[in-house]
């Protein structure tokens, strides 16, 4: 049952309790209690708006940084990952399979600011072997949300 609630909330965190209750076929009390519990347990970590920042003057730039890292005995990548995630400039940190180890999403006001952050902060960490920076040029879809205009509902009224 939690799964249904989570699916709905991850689609739209602003559904009202009343709507969630109707859609899952449960009482509003049940739904409220369950959400509160999931928040308390840390199963739900937060709620955020998906913003099209490109339309704002104060737009920011972001980049995906690929980090190659020397794992530490007994700790693996844990220590460096936890250190990297503490920077406020860092939006996300993932441990990856394949050609590099950590994927770090960094944001800043300008390309230069991001580049400097990588050079000064990330590449100077002891266990970081190399960094490779890829700037995001345009967002088409983010967190399941389309960021560009598409056709929308183009159904006619032909059905009977």
């Amino acid at each position, binding site marked *: 049952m939690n799964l249904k609630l989570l699916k709905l909330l991850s689609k*739209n965190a602003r*559904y009202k309790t009343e709507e969630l209750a109707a*859609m899952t*076929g449960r009482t509003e009390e049940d739904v409220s209690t369950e959400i509160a519990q999931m928040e308390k347990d840390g199963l739900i970590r937060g709620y955020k708006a998906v913003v099209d920042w490109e339309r704002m003057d104060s737009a920011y730039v972001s980049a995906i940084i690929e980090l190659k890292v020397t794992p530490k005995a007994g700790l693996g990548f844990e220590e460096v990952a936890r250190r990297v995630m503490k920077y406020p400039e860092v939006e996300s940190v993932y441990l990856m399979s394949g050609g590099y180890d950590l994927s770090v999403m960094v944001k800043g006001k300008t390309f230069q600011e991001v580049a400097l952050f990588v050079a000064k902060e990330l590449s100077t960490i002891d266990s970081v072997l190399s960094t490779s920076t890829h700037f995001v040029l345009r967002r088409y879809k983010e967190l399941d949300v389309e960021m560009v205009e598409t056709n929308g*509902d183009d159904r006619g*009224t032909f*059905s009977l």
Partner: protein
Amino acid sequence: MSTVNYQNILNPAVCQIKPSGIRKFFDIAETMDDVISLGVGEPDFPTPWRIRQAGIASLENSQTRYTSNSGLIKLRQEVATYVKRKYSLTYDPEHEILITVGGSEAIDAALRAVVAPGDEVIIPQPSYVCYEPMTVLTGGVPVIIETDAEHEFKLTPEALLAHITPKTKALILPYPCNPTGGIMEREDLEAIATILREHDILVISDEIYAELTYGGKPHVSIASIEGMAERTVVVNGFSKTFSMTGWRMGYACGPAPIMQEIRKIHQYAIMCAPTTSQYAAIEALRSCESDVAAMREEYDMRRRLIVSGFNKLGLVCREPKGAFYAFPCIRSTGLTSEEFCERLLYAKKVAVVPGPAFGQGGEGFIRASYCYSVEHITEALRRIGEFLEELK
């Protein structure tokens, strides 16, 4: 310039057919801005990508010619496997399955194959709008059974028995039902099957919404009931299940002697169903079970939302167990269905369909499709709420 008297030229039987009552409101709605519609009986999901890809691949491979009149044998074999797995129906792909242009063509051809002038065709209503006019065009006589909310819009054995005469040729069985959302469960079907067998009545079972039933109750086909396969033409299709309305793909399954005649009509009128669509349909049957399940789950959520919404607004709405329409009762407003829909459209720009568009028994109800996003449904309900407040 000579004047032509078209009334002399046209077939009076055709001229007498009324245009669908659904159209009227759509036509008004189209002249207005910002209309929010719960009118459309068409899935909002795009056709699953693999199906589209199979269509594209068939074009790339130059599969652009006529197929066999009955449809690609590969597709008929897939249909046979599918209806066996889903509904425990056994049909020979060679002689008992026909691929048609949507379910509509199958219904039309089946009626034309069996109904002779004067034959009576029993049609439970409220139901889809095509059965009555198609029957009239064959020279048949529609005999309407009004189903009601009290019996969850099911066809009861009592009502069926009361409408059978020596002239009764066929019964159209439209379940899961557009617009009522009613379904016929196994015991309901068994009850009417006894009568149908006794009176030797053919069933044209329109099962186009078979995959859209809710509450863990899979659809039961009347053809799977003892002694019924030999007197049933099952009509189904891809439009609703696989969100493939524009591909125009349906099929009919039935006893070989009937199918042979239906095929003749299809052959002369249609030749064969669109080839691209047939290739796409093979892919649909083979590999899109999970897409269908996901769509069903989404419809189910919307269904609960809209039903609870109407009930909260004071419009009594039973739980529809199939298809994708809610059919709330609007008698509490003191308006007729037509008045309700018209005033709602002008006052709040919400388009719904009056129940009588599906037969007189629909009076007092409206049909609201839930093939719309949750946000869209929520906004429509909000506006309907305002409308009801202002009525008071």
